[in-house]
Structure formats: C-alpha cells, structure tokens
C-alpha cells in the first residue's frame, strides 16, 4: 500500500514538474495526463474508486482532450522552445513558492490527520449502495442544490464558450 502510494506520489510530482517545465505544450499536456492518472491511483488507495474512474474518464479523457484540441486548433504543437520566464523573475518565483511550500508542508504534515469515522462511514455506504450509489445518494438528497447549480454552471459555460469561440457574429 505505502509503496504504491509513494509510487503514485512520485509519478504525480514528476508529472507535475513535467507540466511546468515541458517545452512543448503537447508535452505538458501528456505530463498532465500522467499526473492525473497517478492521482487516480492515489484515489483508489484512498478508497475512492468511483472518483478514480471519473478522474480518468472526465479529466484525463475529456478535459485534457479539450486542451489538446485547442492546442492543435491554435497550431501550438510545433513549438519547441521553452516559454519559461527567465532570470530574476523565476528565481523570485522559486523563492516565493519555496517559502510557501516551506510554510505549508510542516503545518500540514504536522497536523493530526488520521482516517477517522469517515472511513468507516464510507465503507458502510459503499457496502450498502455500491461505489456509485454511495456518492449518488447524498448527491441527490442533501446536495441536490449544488448539484442543480452545477447544471446552471454548465449552461453558463456553454453559452460563454459558444459566444466567445464563434468565429464571427
């Protein structure tokens, strides 16, 4: 378990670094897919099987393809020079991010965060409703309002995307 976790973690971090550093946008995208897949693995390890599936299908499958589609559309796939910011800016950014990481990591790792009653409740729910049902049940009862808002959100996104991406009025 632990080994697997660290493997996935290593993959995820490596992929993330790849996203940031890759010269070619397509490369970035592929690194991103790697990361997403590795995270799906950690989801599995955290007993979130349904989410792991969604992660692959929706994120890696749909959203990333959308990105790829746009990169291709804009014909950016041929760029092989890094557009990393250079010089002082990146050094400063690096320092800044390092500082933030230095503040965050000890705080988070130092906090007590052991699997609690939630793990038990999830196991029970999965046992009762199955992996999908465990999520679906609250989604359509307690969280019905946010769920409906999600619908509106998608409508907005569609309208926005259409209006902006349309070639000419």
């Amino acid at each position: 378990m632990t080994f697997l976790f660290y493997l996935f973690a290593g993959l995820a971090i490596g992929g993330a670094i790849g996203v940031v550093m890759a010269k070619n946008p397509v490369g970035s995208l592929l690194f991103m897919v790697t990361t997403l897949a590795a995270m799906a693995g950690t989801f599995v390890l955290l007993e979130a099987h349904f989410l792991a599936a969604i992660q692959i299908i929706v994120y890696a499958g749909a959203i990333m393809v959308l990105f790829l589609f746009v990169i291709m559309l804009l014909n950016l796939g041929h760029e092989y020079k890094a557009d990393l910011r250079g010089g002082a800016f990146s050094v400063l950014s690096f320092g800044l991010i390092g500082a933030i990481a230095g503040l965050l990591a000890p705080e988070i790792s130092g906090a007590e965060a052991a699997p609690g009653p939630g793990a038990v409740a999830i196991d029970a729910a999965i046992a009762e409703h199955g992996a999908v049902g465990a999520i679906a049940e609250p989604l359509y009862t307690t969280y019905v309002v946010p769920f409906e808002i999600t619908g509106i959100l998608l409508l907005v996104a569609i309208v926005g995307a259409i209006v902006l991406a349309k070639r000419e009025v």
Partner: protein
Amino acid sequence: MQLDFSRQLHFFWALLPEIILCAWAMVVLITGVSGRFKDAENDGGDPSFNNAASLGWLALVGVLLAAMANGWLYGITEVGRDSMVAVDGFRLFSNWVFLLAAGLSILISFSYVYRQRLQAGEFYGLILLATAGMMFMAGARDLIVIFLGLEVMSIAVYALTAFNRRDRKSAEAGLKYFLLGAFATGFFLYGIALVYGATGSTNIAAVSRSVASGAATPTFLALGITFLTIGFGFKVSAVPFHMWTPDVYEGAPAPVTAFMSAAVKAAAFVAFLRVFMVGFDGAYETWYPILWWLAAITMVVANLIALVQSNVKRMLAYSSIAHAGYLLVAITASNETAAAGLLFYLLVYTVMNIGAFAIVIGVAHHAEERLQVEDYSGFGWSQPLLGVLLTIFLLSLAGFPGTGGFMGKIYLLQGAADAQLWYLSVILVLTTIASYWYYLRVAWFMWMKSELTERQHALVMVPLPMRVALVASVFIVLYLGFFPGSALEFARASVEGLGVMGAGVPGLGQ
C-alpha cells in the same frame, strides 16, 4: 409559508428568485437565437427599441420577476439553520442589490450593445445568469454552494468581459480575468478543502459551531481561513489580489465593468461576510489582523494609484478597489452594525457606481474611446444635466454629505467604532481625502476647463433606458443621502437573523 428543507420541493421555493432568473435567462437566450432577434447589427434606428433592445427589455422583465419573487420570500420563514440555503434578511437584501445592479446594468447596456453590435441574447442572458450566481452566493449556507455560485457568476462574467470580440482589449481583459480568477479559485477551493478538513463540514453553521467549540483542527482552520481570504480577497479585489482589477475594468465593455464593479464585488462581499462573521466568528483573533492589514493596504494603495490615473474607467477601477478597502473595514469590524453598514454601502455603491459608469458609457461613444479625463473638458457646460448627475455620483463615491455615499461611509465607520477600530477609521478617512482628489479631478475637467467643441459633446448618446437608469440612480443616491432612515433600518433589520456574531470578540456586544 414555512419552509421545511427536509422536503426537496421547498428548495424550489427557497430558491425561487434564482430559479426564475435562470429560467428567464434561458428564455432570453432562446429568444435571442431565434430568427427574429438574431440580427442585432443592421436593424439600426433607435437603440432603445430595436431588436437587440427588445431582448434587453425582456431581460429586465426577468429581473423584475425575480425581484417579485424576492419580495415574496419575505413572507417565508425557515426551520433549522443547517440548511444549504438561507432564507434570511441578509440574503434578501443582498438579492435586492444584485437585482438592482443587474437591472441598472441592463438599462445602461442598450446603447453599448447597439453601438458595438453585440449578441444581445447571450449578453443579457449571461448577465441574468451571473446575477443568479451571485444570488446563490448570498443565499448559501454551505461553502460548496458559495463556491458553485461563485463559479457561475465568475464564468459568466469572464465571458462577459471578453464579450466584445472586436476589441482586443476586451479579449485581453477576459484572459487576464479568467487566468487570474481561476488561479484564485484554486486557492479558494483549497481553502474550502482545508476548512472541511478542519471542521468536518462545509456547512457554515456547522463550521461555526465547530470553530466556536474549539473542535476544529487549528492548523487546517488557520490555513483554510487564509486561503479563503485570498479567494474572497481576489473577488473583492483587495490589495494585493487586485492586480487584475484595473486592467479588466478598463478592458471590459463598460456596462460589464459597471456590473462587475458593483454586483460581483457585492456578491463576493456578502459571501465573505457570511463566511467570516458567521462561520469563523470563533476564530476572530486569527483572521482579524489579516483583514485589518488587507483593509488598510487596500485603502492606501488603491487611493494612491488612483491619483495618477488619467483614464476614467481605470480611475473608477481603482476607486472600486478603494471601496473594497472601505468595505473590508466592515468585515474586519465584524459586528452587526458593520454588517448592516456593509449591506447599506453595497446598495449605495451599486447605484452610484453604475450611475457614474452610465455617463462614462454615454460619453465614450462608439468604441471604447474618449475615456481620458481630458475628454471631459467642458462636458458639464455642454451637457449640464449629465454633468450635474456625474458630479453627484462622484461626490457620492467620494462620500460627501447629501449623498448616499456619505451615509454609507458613516455606517461603516460606526461599525468600525463599535469594534473600536480607530486606527482603521482614521486610515479610512485619510484615504478618503486622497480619493477626493481624483473624483474632483473629473469634476474640475467637467466644469472648470475650457470646453471642447459642441460637436464632440453632442455625440454623447443617452437613450431612454439609460435615462431611466440615471434618474433612478440619482434618485436613490440622493434619497439615501437625505432620507436614509428607512434604508438604514432595513439594512439593520436584515442582518438581525444572520446568526451568531460578536460572541467573545473584543469590542463587540455593546
């Protein structure tokens, strides 16, 4: 009628204004794409009553219907505090502000839409949807709902910002807004996650209980509060999260800027207030210094930069940042007076800001031209009525007696007084003095500089809807300036049911 959220239908009633708006947005969209209203560009004629304008009027009807629903909700009482949706005075008051902002923004959009030949259906539809998103935020008692409402609003506004596709400034503004907005959303979301991690819930009431009882994990809570502050700080454009604001406000279509600066900010503040004052009440000591500094820096920096702006839209952008600073004082104060002050101020700010933008739109004929202060030379004398109106709006923005802006500022200061934030109050008034300079600068160009040619100012376009908006705005600004009593009382009453506040917080509860 009493709502019982164990029945799902009751969510429908509780969210009636939002639902009406969303539904109406679809109506507008569909009408817009239907053949008859499709052609916005070559129907010519009166910008008040052409095809595109019909959609505007249609959208206004939606706003009106939502407003009716909002009024109807006053007869509703709710049971239980842990529901996802609040039906309290606070939300309803905020809804009034959003609807007012939306209505006024639509009214001032007519000439812009006409001149820029925008797709009216989508434009008005997105405004309605954004408004709905704001209303979700205001009514949310759950961080997730706030987040989703925020996203509905934001995505709609991203689209609106980049809406004018002929204008590269608009696109640039859209990209900047979008990228930075999404960036901030990441922080915001991380904040929600951490709060969830700290308290085990995203429901504000539950969070509040957990925080007050001390059950929340302090590390996560502190981090969560930090990141939520950043998220909200971005949306309300508090320094140093304000960097997008001037560029976006300058680049976005002027009516959208008006809408953004008033309504988006209002929504963010309302949610900000509910989350921090209700949810994190028990952790006041943690976040109050952050907000104190945020408020102070925001007021100072925004007002100082605004001094050197020569573009009116950009100046108004910095002014809106400055106003965010004033409003942050209310959140820092975190008591009932401050909350009521915030609501009242949002109302006033919405009206006066949109009023000012209305005239900016009128002056900036055709594309986004004629936005420099110099372009206002002698404007007052060639268009005396508009000049007077703009002067009143500017004075109100500056917080001058006789206008609503003054009363709002007083209310904020009272809130600060109740929390004994004297230094912050002093910073507020001192920065206000700086703000006088740039507001009056417009006034001096208008009235004290030599006139431009009559012809130039004759191009100012003020169609009927904008006139309606202007009259309404100036009426409200002056009414609130001279007879603020009922509105103040209304704002005060609106925050009464907000929830636990002031317990264990120094300077509160007197």
